[in-house]
């Protein structure tokens, strides 16, 4: 009986894993398959789809746009989100919790509503042209509250007396931040920046509404799926997978995060 239950558990877990990781495995496997159809049997190992992708100017344009959006988004969101969190830690909980919740509203309402609102705001009121800058603005709306939440959580266990001690020992407010606060929240900052980067990289709805013309990787893939379902999409997905896992691994190593 016990053996049967153990077996059942194993089966359930195996199916969960299969269901969640299966599509990823299929994407990776077929990106290296020579056939043009995503169907068995496999026809042979090939790098053709990568070759095709890398020779496509459209791909490189989308790739550059993605970086041009995700890198500034990650940096700006980390700076402003951290400043928000640091400012909030000086307030009492009864003041900081509602403020943080108010700042998090953009994550809680449907992205479609945010996207439409942004377009109206940009075009009608601010006369800001749609494009990369407009996308960054939209992504900041989504990523900055997440950074603020992550950093606030870290600051909750931060010893504020240590900051006063630093000031007392001759540090200016900036030096106290630089030598006492920053080293202790660095891991949280890198984590938050990566989170913002990842969210921005695969964000689709706000991007397609506010980019005007041109593509990022997510809108490029979407466009390709509407016209031709060829395995070079699998190649893009595999690349994104490698970039995300790789950068996370590097960040964890950099921040000496253990467990």
């Amino acid at each position: 009986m016990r053996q049967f239950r153990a077996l059942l558990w194993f089966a359930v877990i195996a199916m969960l894993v299969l269901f969640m990781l299966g599509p990823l495995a299929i994407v990776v496997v077929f990106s290296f398959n020579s056939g043009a159809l995503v169907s068995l049997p496999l026809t042979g190992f090939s790098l053709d789809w990568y070759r095709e992708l890398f020779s496509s100017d459209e791909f490189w344009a989308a790739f550059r746009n993605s970086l041009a959006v995700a890198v500034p988004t990650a940096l700006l969101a980390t700076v402003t989100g951290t400043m928000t969190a640091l400012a909030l830690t000086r307030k009492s909980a009864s003041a900081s919790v509602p403020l943080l919740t108010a700042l998090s509203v953009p994550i809680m309402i449907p992205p479609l509503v945010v996207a439409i609102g942004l377009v109206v705001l940009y075009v009608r009121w601010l006369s800001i042209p749609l494009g990369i800058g407009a996308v960054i603005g939209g992504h900041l709306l989504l990523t900055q509250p997440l950074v603020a939440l992550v950093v606030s959580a870290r600051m909750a266990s931060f010893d504020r007396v240590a900051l006063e001690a630093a000031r007392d020992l001759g540090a200016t407010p900036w030096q106290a931040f630089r030598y006492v606060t920053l080293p202790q929240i660095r891991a949280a900052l890198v984590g938050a920046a990566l989170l913002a980067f990842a969210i921005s990289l695969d964000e689709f709805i706000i991007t397609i509404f506010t980019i005007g013309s041109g593509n990022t990787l997510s809108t490029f893939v979407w466009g390709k799926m509407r016209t031709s379902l060829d395995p070079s999409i699998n190649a893009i997905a595999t690349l994104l997978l490698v970039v995300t896992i790789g950068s996370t691994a590097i960040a964890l190593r950099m921040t000496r995060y253990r467990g």
Partner: protein
Amino acid sequence: MRGFESEDPILRLAGLGKRFGHADVVKDIELTIPRGSFTAILGPSGCGKSTLLRMIGGLTLPTSGRIEIDGEDVTYTPPQKRPTNTVFQSHGLFAHMSVHENVAFGLSLAGRPREEISDRVADALKLVRLSGFEGRTVDRLSGGQQQRVALARALVMRPKILLLDEPLSALDLKLRQAMQEELRAIHLDTGGTFIFVTHDQAEAFALGDRLIVMNQGRIEQAGPPGEVYARPRSRFAAEFVGDANFLTGKRNNGRVALDIGVQFDLPGPDGMLNLMLRPEAARLHTAGADSREDGRISVEGVIKEVVDLGPFAQCRFDLGGGHHIEISGIPRTMIGEIAVGSRVSASWPKSALVDVTP
């Protein structure tokens, strides 16, 4: 012991006050602290003593008044530019740094040469008996060791005034006593000016050569500890620095009539009177010993309760009419003679009575 109005003050506070919203946390403090002294600021929690210390260190800005350190106005000088350093109650150590880096922090910010830093850090760690701990991370240290790192980190800066905010309150009794001894030795060694905030009167007496009693944002009394104990100026000061009996009465033409039914001459203004008597100043007289010496006030009463404290005993002495006093410091040899319920006399010198009438 130094006189209270020193010729060479290192710190001068004039009309210093701090208001948070509508609450005056510190009110109109006038105070001078002489160079090289060890001052204990004593008061109940919420009396404004920590706020006063923070204002001296620059961590809290005053809302009124003036702070002078060594003749220089530092009222609005930021903490990093003041010649003061603080040992915090909860240490405030830098958790991501080693012991050496913690102690070296202030000196490296000041841009001192590397050799000087390592020499001075080594000296400071030796002073607090933590030599050999340089490479440890601070979270691997015990509470007492962390306390000593915090002390070394402040001392290494050679502050004109070292501020200590209840630094020992987080430690257990044995460690606290050991640290008190070390603090006294370090004060002698360095010859610096220490200001120490505490709510523990025993600690204030053990450490300070000067005592400031604070209550509700004001200085209740300031002076050498022995003087504050023997001649408190208010009921609050009397009770806060030790145990006290209070005897109420009236004075008319220099003749005092206490409510416990005793009369004697004591010059002063007419009116209601409140006199303080320390429990150890009264003496019990058994077996009809003559208690009517010159200048002593003598009363009759009944022993109500005896507590044997080991070296001494104390008792509750009922004077009738709902009045009673505590008498302590009763020698062991007398314990057998003072049975509960026995009727004896007690006396004290007139000079032991301190007028604390508001």
